[in-house]
């Protein structure tokens, strides 16, 4: 097990290193460097201004030397300074990580609270009206784009109940009411897709498990149906659901970018979007690296959770 964890962690580090190379190169290799693109937006820059800006950002040095400086700093928690605000990228990220992690965790919790009971119900009552209704809503959840849902929800809430999400983030442990008021609806919108995918997976996986011999044995022994499902079937049916959560986590994090933007929430997602719109490349690099780190770590945990869910799984 320990060897497996070490190997997976090393693989994760390799992926992060590759992500850092890709994003660092993208900004520099493509036509027009960051400085020109940046300064071009304001006014026609003179060669002196361009040269000074390049020097300031270290863009006149060889590519590898630039990368070495950046990655050494990144390893020590220094991701450079924002091209626009001149503030350290790490500080900008740290200020906003709390909100985005709250939003991501709440989205998963909300999605699971919706998906698991409905998925189980759908499987147990296969091919009944409730199954069809649940499946229809699942496909609908997959098809409604989060940006549309968010736009419609925020506007109609503002019109009908005169509610707009509070600005200024408070962590759950400090002010639960405010935190939920601020993030519950965005979390519902982000979680809708995950809920739909997980519900479908819970249903199909549970149907598969319910056909197994050990379930027949449990029923033959006279175990109550509820106990058969909760104690015998659900845990085994949960492995593909966890896999799906792992796969969908990336989409969920992407959703935070759009929903934070629409709900004016100051998270890493909206920071990334601002950076993209203002072409703040150092900030883009930092935000991409942040998202990649979260995904790599999540995937590691998803892999490790298999052994807990199914003790037959042994890692080599």
């Amino acid at each position, binding site marked *: 097990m320990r060897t497996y964890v070490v190997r997976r962690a090393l693989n994760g580090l390799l992926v992060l290193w590759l992500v850092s190379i890709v994003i660092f190169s993208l900004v520099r290799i493509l036509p027009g460097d960051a400085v020109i693109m940046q300064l071009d937006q304001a006014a026609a820059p003179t060669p002196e201004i361009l040269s000074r800006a390049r020097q300031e950002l270290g863009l006149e040095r060889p590519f590898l030397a630039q990368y070495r400086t950046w990655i050494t700093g990144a390893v020590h928690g220094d991701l450079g300074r924002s091209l626009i605000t001149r503030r350290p990228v790490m500080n900008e990220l740290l200020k906003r990580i709390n909100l985005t992690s709250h939003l991501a965790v709440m989205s998963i919790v909300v999605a699971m609270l919706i998906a698991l009971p409905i998925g189980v119900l759908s499987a147990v009552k296969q091919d009944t009206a409730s199954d069809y209704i649940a499946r229809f809503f699942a496909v609908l959840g997959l098809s409604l784009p989060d940006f*549309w849902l968010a*736009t*419609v929800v925020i*506007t109609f809430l503002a019109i009908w109940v005169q509610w707009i999400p509070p600005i200024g983030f408070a962590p759950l442990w400090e002010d639960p009411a405010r935190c939920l008021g601020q993030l519950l609806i965005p979390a519902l919108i982000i979680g809708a897709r995950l809920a739909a995918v997980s519900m479908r997976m819970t249903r199909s996986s549970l149907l598969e498990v319910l056909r197994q011999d050990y379930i027949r044995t449990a029923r033959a022994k006279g175990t109550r149906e509820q106990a058969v499902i909760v104690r015998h079937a659900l845990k085994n049916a949960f492995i593909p659901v966890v896999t799906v959560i792992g796969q969908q986590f990336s989409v969920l*994090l992407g959703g935070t*970018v759009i929903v934070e933007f629409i709900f004016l929430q100051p998270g890493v997602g909206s920071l990334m979007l601002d950076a*993209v719109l203002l072409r703040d490349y150092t900030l883009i690099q930092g935000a991409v690296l942040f998202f990649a780190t979260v995904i790599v770590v999540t995937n590691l945990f998803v892999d490790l959770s298999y052994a807990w869910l199914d003790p037959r799984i042994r890692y080599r």
Partner: protein
Amino acid sequence: MRDAWAEVWLLARRKPLGAVSAMIILGLVVVAVLAPVLAPRDPYLFNLNERGLPIRMQAPTTTFPFGTDPLGRDVLSRIIYGARISLIVGLASVLIGTLLGTVLGLVSGYWEGGLDQIIQRGVDTTMAIPGIVLALAVMSILGQSLTNIILVIALVIAPGTSRVVRGTVLAVKQHTFIDAAQALGASPWRIVARHVLPNVFAPILVIATVWLGNAIVIEAALSFLGLGTPPPTPTWGAMLSGEGRRNLETAPYLAIFPGVAISIVVLAFNMLGDALRDLLDPRLRSR
């Protein structure tokens, strides 16, 4: 020919939702192709009233069934023309992304070894970045254009497709017909093209169908965020974000119609993907 129709009818009866979805998608194709004929007005034209002023934000009427936008352009015509952009972006990006993903998956799965490792680390790298974040980052660097959107979405599609193809190739390789082809002296490329590829076609078709819907959503999301096809080209995402979002309180139809258009098309692609998966995946066939 009659046999083909009979088979289509049989499939439609087995999967009615899939058949309805296929009809909706066919409708989308017809609307996109015949846009100049079907659109009641020029989508770029500022419609003027008798005093020569633009008919701004006119609520739906018989003259303007979906109303007009803040510049006086006909929303229905813009939605009809917007179908073209959605379809072009969807088809082109899925075609490029699927082709790239299939080639990478075939090479990676069939030859394994060092090349597989290199390709898979590349796939890991791309998949470690959320699709929309990757698309935003690349679009900010490449700049806004239809071609760039297509390339960016293809880049998001390719890694996942290559994973699915690789997994299927690894399974197909275990079959004895591959050993037989090797024993007969067939070249690796011939084995891949003649024996492996036909067996990975079903999962590719399913994943490509679902991706068509997702590609349309990504394009709309990029347009919504201001990084899609530049104005004044009518796109569903841009209609929703600009005029739609700003005027949702006073003119909700501006956001509702393009939003419904996106949702119906994506719903159709998702349901068609489901139907194809049920029909083509033997493991799920009995369910």
